């Protein structure tokens, strides 16, 4: 049973890791936890649903279309709402993201209705691979691989591509980047686009295990945020590790200590981490000197 617990923890942890990654990318660029991340992913997932069901396109076309849509959605939201804020404080930006969250949530409720829908991804969550008495579904396996793959891709992107390096530069020193000829506004837009794409992948992989409705990403968003805080909002690797760790802790706690408080353990973890390591478990600790 313990082995199965670890697998279940890793499976759900991969989802948290994806959401955490998406949040951290934006946090590093705009210095704001993007609370609209979940709703952005939800709307993208609905877009995939629409392509699959109403337009009857094949699922790889739908997937590709969704990624393009998600990228555009991220860029548009950044351009329309975030960039408009004049000399924003962090609190202003948080309120902007909360506002976007409400708008997207309302929009989805109006456009697609409140009914739960079945999201038809052709990767099964009930067909399983068996290894020595332990089971893992094809979908969970796909999520795990996707999470690892995306982490690798992101790492390479930030390390070796021109845009990636420009992004890092923008994150580290906006003014200096600008002086050096980086169009920082473009960079911010692209950052939001990439983050939105990662969120969309999380949404599409998660929806089949749950049901598609406007509340799709509420739980994963909170957990992903918790994971990011745990691992360190400034570190991609840290955030992802935080996701796995949280998935694992939750499952362990649920089975051996209390199912009733399983969901709350995430917040307990946040408090403990903030208490002892405010920058996160896997992030370099630094104090801002004035």
């Amino acid at each position, binding site marked *: *049973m313990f082995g*199965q*617990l670890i697998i*279940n923890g890793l*499976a*759900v942890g991969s989802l948290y890791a994806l959401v955490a990654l998406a949040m951290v990318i934006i946090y590093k660029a705009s210095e704001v936890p993007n609370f609209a991340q979940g709703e952005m992913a939800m709307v993208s997932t609905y877009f995939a649903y629409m392509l699959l069901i109403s337009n009857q396109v094949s699922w790889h076309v739908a997937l590709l279309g969704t990624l393009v849509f998600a990228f555009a959605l991220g860029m548009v939201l950044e351009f329309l709402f975030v960039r408009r804020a004049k000399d924003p404080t962090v609190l202003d930006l948080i309120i902007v993201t909360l506002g976007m969250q409400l708008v997207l949530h309302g929009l989805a*409720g109006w456009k697609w*209705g*409140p*009914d*739960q*829908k*079945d999201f038809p991804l052709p990767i099964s*969550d*009930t067909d*399983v691979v068996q290894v020595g008495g332990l*089971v893992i*579904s094809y979908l*969970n396996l796909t999520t795990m691989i996707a999470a690892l793959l995306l982490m690798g891709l992101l790492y390479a992107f930030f390390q070796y591509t021109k845009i990636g390096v420009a992004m890092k530069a923008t994150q580290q020193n906006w003014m200096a980047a600008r002086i050096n000829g980086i169009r920082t506004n473009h960079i911010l837009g692209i950052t939001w686009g990439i983050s939105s794409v990662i969120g969309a992948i999380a949404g599409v992989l*998660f929806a089949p*295990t*749950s*049901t598609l*409705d406007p*509340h799709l990403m*509420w*739980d*994963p968003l*909170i957990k992903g945020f918790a994971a990011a805080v745990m691992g360190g909002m400034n570190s991609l690797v840290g955030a992802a590790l935080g996701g796995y760790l949280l*998935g694992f802790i*939750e*499952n362990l706690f*649920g*089975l051996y200590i209390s*199912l*009733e408080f*399983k*969901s*709350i353990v995430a917040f307990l973890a946040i408090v403990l981490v903030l208490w002892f390591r405010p920058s996160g478990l896997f992030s370099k600790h630094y104090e801002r000197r004035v």
Partner: protein
Amino acid sequence: MKHSRWLLAGIFLAVVAVALGVGCGKKGQRGVTDTEIVIGQWGPQTGPAALWGAVARGTDAYFKMINEEGGINGRKIRYIYRDDAYQPAKTKAVVKEMVENEGVFAFVGGVGTAPGMAVKDYLIQNQVPWVGPASGSSHWAYPPNKYIFSVYPLYFDEAAVLVDYAVNTLKKTKIAMIYQNDDYGKGGLVGAKMALEKHGLDFVATATTQIMDTDLSSHILKLKEAGAEVVIMYLLPKQAAISLGTAAKLGFKPQWMTTSTLSDMGLMHNITKGLWEGVIFANFAEMPDSDHPLMKKYREAAKKYAPDERWGVFFAAGFLFAEPMVEGLKRAGKDLTVESFIEAMESIKDFKGIGPTITFGPNQRQGTRSVFLSQCVSATEAKQLTDWMTSDIDVEEAIRRMKEGE
């Protein structure tokens, strides 16, 4: 000049108002005139529970049908419903508005325990009758209140009936339960436990969920490890779908049983990708595709008055909750007041619509304690397993246990 014109207009309006007021107030009854009766309902048309908004719209189709048939004792029903988005604070606001501005005579239905609890005292204080709260909570009829008539089977009772069937007919003894951590889930837990005790049994395992939980793998693992043969489920559609999916993945195949809350088979079959087949569930009314003559008639009415609506369980429930009210209004006769209506409602004995047999009395406000069970065969077909079954657990004891937080 200008002033005097306004003055004239004002006087004219005042005269009209007085004239109308006299017309309305002839019998001194809010919401009743010679030609109409005003009935209200609240229900979530938006927000997380909007799925159940169909109840209020179903009632609309039902009243349109009644009006077309000539109304009740020469009066037509004027029906209004408002969206409360399943938020108790909003329920309070819309109910107050409907009573004080629209002059509602009585309310029917009204989805949800928390929204209903938010307005219960207000309705009682203002002597507004309320028939058929759309929730299986015991708060409506225990202790009985003059103005409230409940026709929804109690959550305790559905659980007790499910346990009786599992033990007596399926001959299972290893029974487990997964339930959400609120009034609905805990009501089921208490009812099932009391029924198990009656058979000299106890749960082999229980698992409780928070309403937003989406990862239920440790819950299901716990039930599986306990070797449960039957799992009773008191969840909402989303978590029910997650539970069945997770169980299928882990190779756990118990007999799932659940409540009327999840009796919308078309929806459940779809969102569980067919895993719903074989699930046994309780029903508080004839199934939507039933051949029951009243059900046939209502289906036709729904097609006529609400052609865009899906004829599902919750839409039909809008007819179900309003049936006893219409019966009461008929019995109250031409001289309709709150008092005569309540007296008429209390005289209802063995009333049969599309639901179970309903009986009220001077001190009896829970109209029924019966459900029947059916089993999902395919997306559109269910097999009726039992006739109406009545729970016999002690409600007072169940309420006591709920309060103790068992």
